[in-house]
């Protein structure tokens, strides 16, 4: 079996990091494929229950970015 890869859930703000991710994409930049992105309308939408829910549903890490 290949090396274990973590599953990381990323909560990205629509206006900031999600935009950055988009820009990274169109610029053809390379980055690790471990992220599963959830777009949130604003980092203010973030709630601690999202984080715990992520861990309960099998995420190995959570990243919140505004």
């Amino acid at each position, binding site marked *: 079996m290949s090396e274990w890869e973590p599953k990381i859930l990323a909560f990205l703000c629509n206006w900031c990091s999600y935009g950055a991710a988009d820009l990274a994409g169109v610029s053809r930049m390379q980055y690790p494929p471990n992220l599963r992105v959830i777009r949130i309308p604003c980092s203010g939408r973030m709630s*601690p*229950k999202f984080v*715990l*829910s992520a861990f*309960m549903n099998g995420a190995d890490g959570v990243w919140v970015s505004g």
Partner: protein
Amino acid sequence: MIGYIDKIREVALKLLNEEKVDMVIGYRQGSLPMMTEPCFVKRPEDVETLIWDSNCRINLAAYLMDRKEKIGIIAKGCDSRNIINHLVENKIKREQLVIIGAPCKGMIDNKAIALQFGQDIDEYQETEDQITVKGGGTEKTFQKVDVLQENCAICNHRNPVVYDELAGDLVEEQTDIDRYEDIRKIEAMDIDEKWNFFEDMLSTCIRCYACRNACPLCYCPTCFVDESKPQWVGKSNDPNDTRTFHFLRAFHCAGRCTDCGACERACPMDIPVRLFTKKLGKDCLDLYGWEAGLDPEQRPPLDTFKPDDPNVGMK
């Protein structure tokens, strides 16, 4: 402190007679020794049922939420801070309230006394500094300072923060106390120790939500644990769900909790749930210099943004 009752009754009587309020919320004697029952008084002739002693533990602010009447309410330091919370969060209007402040020297921990006494208590008496309990043919006297509830022993806001009348002279605030010794102890543990510590602590939790329901801060029409679409938290007493509940409940009280101890007192299993809320209280104090419920004009730190807010762990 035990002499307050005359003044409380006098004020209550006056308020009701002059129809300044529709009801007065206070305490009456419970059916068990060392217990009081929160109650309301609407008729002047019932004022005599009100009592005041070191067993008035319950936070009366929990009975104010969304009430429409004009209310007279007895408020200890912690109660008054929770009243301010309600004012800040628009759960009640200041004009509705006549606050009878009760400077408090701490309420006693009836469970600890029962445990130390070792048998059923039939009778209870108190003086200014001493508690005497009788039962099973013996009696025992305790110094009140030795049997205070833990949150009362470390209380730094004994005097009501807001009041219209006072039931007695203001008392001296405690300044030489270490409020967060237990929290620091947990903070010093390593990751797995912490995990196991809470695992053990919560193992007896029966998910009755008494802590939530007793809390004057918890008034959401639908609590996140009761939501089923999406189901944030499982409904069984699985340890992960229990932990999630306690953890999130504490988060919801961050910057609002006055450490009144209502949650711990309500817990039928005596789980020290304040260890969660106190940690967040400590963080609010350390990071923002904030203590909840001191000023009705000031917005809480998690409600405002300032350019110099600390960035904890931000990249």
